[in-house]
């Protein structure tokens, strides 16, 4: 089977809408509604990028907020998920199966349903407009999948390995730290990226927990840029924001795509 044609199709499918955004981001509003081939000769501009970068607050602030929340959520999730996965793997099969099933159910829950109760929770605990507080629901929402993925990875390690370490007198922390975790690095990396992307993407909770402008995360800020101008839908400015917001992700995926795939391979579905 030749590869070139399907490959071209796949790349076109993935890239074309993005390229159109790139193109739109370089056009003036007037040029966007011109028709016919001659329209392409005029109306090119960098003003959209200037507008987005010089906004108040500037665009990088949203990127920073999203990175901060993403990093905090990922850190918290791993901190709780690694011991939990280890603990789960050490349970009797019946209990392990039961807990795994509940976690699976939670992982597949359409979490958008939860926003109203989480909003009430934020109110009761005064967590509104606290950027780092978002890490708690994000970690809670990511934990089921993270624990399941890491548990499967623990299961893949030969049991003799830990037994040997125990015989050498290493305590639990030392065993985890020195023996098990290094072997789990790929699974941890892929879990981390999944969690990070989830919090990078998350909309309804960020929408309801954060009302201060300078604390917005990227998805909410983008939705707001969409509606922040009287002057027609600012498709150009919006497209510029898409391009700027997409670049870090492109870099991330480019660097980590191997880990993303190989980490998932470590037996996510086998247990």
């Amino acid at each position, binding site marked *: 089977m030749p590869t070139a044609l399907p490959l071209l199709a796949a790349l076109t499918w993935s890239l074309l809408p993005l390229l159109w955004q790139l193109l739109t981001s370089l056009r003036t509003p007037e040029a966007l509604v011109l028709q016919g081939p001659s329209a392409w000769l005029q109306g090119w501009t960098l003003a959209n990028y200037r507008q987005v970068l010089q906004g108040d607050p500037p665009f990088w602030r949203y990127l920073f907020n999203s990175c901060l929340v993403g990093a905090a959520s990922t850190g918290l999730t791993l901190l709780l998920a690694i011991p939990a996965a280890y603990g789960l793997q050490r349970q009797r099969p019946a209990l392990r199966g039961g807990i795994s099933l509940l976690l699976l159910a939670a992982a597949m829950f359409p979490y958008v349903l939860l926003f109203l109760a989480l909003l009430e929770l934020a*109110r009761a605990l005064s967590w509104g407009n606290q950027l780092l507080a978002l890490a708690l629901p994000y970690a809670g929402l990511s934990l089921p999948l993270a624990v399941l993925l890491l548990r499967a990875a623990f299961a893949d390690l030969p049991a003799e390995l830990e037994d040997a370490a125990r015989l050498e007198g290493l305590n639990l922390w030392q065993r985890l730290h020195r023996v098990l975790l290094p072997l789990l690095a790929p699974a941890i990396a892929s879990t981390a990226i999944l969690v990070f992307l989830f919090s990078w993407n998350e909309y309804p909770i960020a929408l309801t927990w954060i009302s201060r*402008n300078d604390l917005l995360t990227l998805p909410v800020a983008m939705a707001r840029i969409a509606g922040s101008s009287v002057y027609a839908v600012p498709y150009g400015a919006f497209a510029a924001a898409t391009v700027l917001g997409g670049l870090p992700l492109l870099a991330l995926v480019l660097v980590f795509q191997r880990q993303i795939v190989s980490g998932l391979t470590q037996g996510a579905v086998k247990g």
Partner: protein
Amino acid sequence: MEVSVLMPAPFADATAPLVAAFNREHRELQIAVTRGPLDTEALSDLAISSLLLGDTPYDLLLMDVTWTPKYAAAGWLEPLEPLLGDNALAGMAPGAQLGNTFGGHLWRLPLLADMGLLYWRTDLMDAPPKSLQELAATAADLQRRGVVPWGYVWQGRQYEGLSCVFLEVLRDFGGHWLRLGDDRQSDLDSPEAIAAAGWLGGLVRSGVTPDAVANISESESLQIFGAGQAAFMRNWPYAWAELQKPGSVVAGRVGVVSLGNGTQGSWGFSLLKGSAHPQQAAAVMRWFTSEATSRDLAVRFGYTPVWQSLLDDPQLQEQLPLLPVLRQALECTALRPLTPLYAQLSDVLQRQLSGLISGSGSAEAAMAEAQRQSTLLLRAAAPGA
């Protein structure tokens, strides 16, 4: 002491220099403005989530006219008459006074008026149409002769704008949303309401209005009209300045007239319950809505002032050629129902109208269904239900 205010971004930007000046002059009282989204529904989401989050960071909220009863009923607002006195609205144009009181209290002080206007192309006709029938006929004629691709663009996306458009047509046909004299009864299945809905549906069916109207909001209609592709557009006053900008295809070829019963869409300040310094907040509210501020906003941004004295001011009329049209439009605005259930009522109506203009069913059936659902809603709200 700091009074914090949440406003849609364009208003925040427009008032920024004035606020900066105010803050320089008043060391002891500072105003902190938060730029919210412009899109009315997005701003409402933001305001409501910050109110639901408890101890909202804002003292004042710049609100759309339809929110007042809902926010008041939710217990989020402070009544204003203890702070501003009983005659706070005196001197404002009659059209601008509407929609600020509910249940016997004043909840909101208007900053600027806003109403639906008809934009027309001065190069395509000598005078604007005098009736909806004439509008439709002229539009169809221009379109048939191939002068413009489309006759009339308006807001038909399933959102609040569609209710605004419909209300104007409804009033023009002599109908009412809620029964005159008994605002606990919906009146959407009246012959007038059916005729109004039928007229809007007919525009789409006859092709005078593009099919695409079912997903068109203010910005998209401005895009089409601004590209010279339509003879008429229904929009708010802001569109005027946009159409005059350098680079606009239709600059200098656009006229504006009152729609006769333009939907009132003003913005005004409310004081949120729990504000730590209501007295100071009231002072800030007064300053924002003062004649001096209004004049400045009118001159620099074309915002429609609410003060009758400004609307009548010959000097201001000279600076703002549009002012007489705005004044006339403000004399006969149509107010959307003042009830805490307005969002639901409007949603019911939008749903049926959207179905009608996107091509399924008859106006009778759509209005009958809107009437049935509205009646259920209003009955649930009746005391003793």
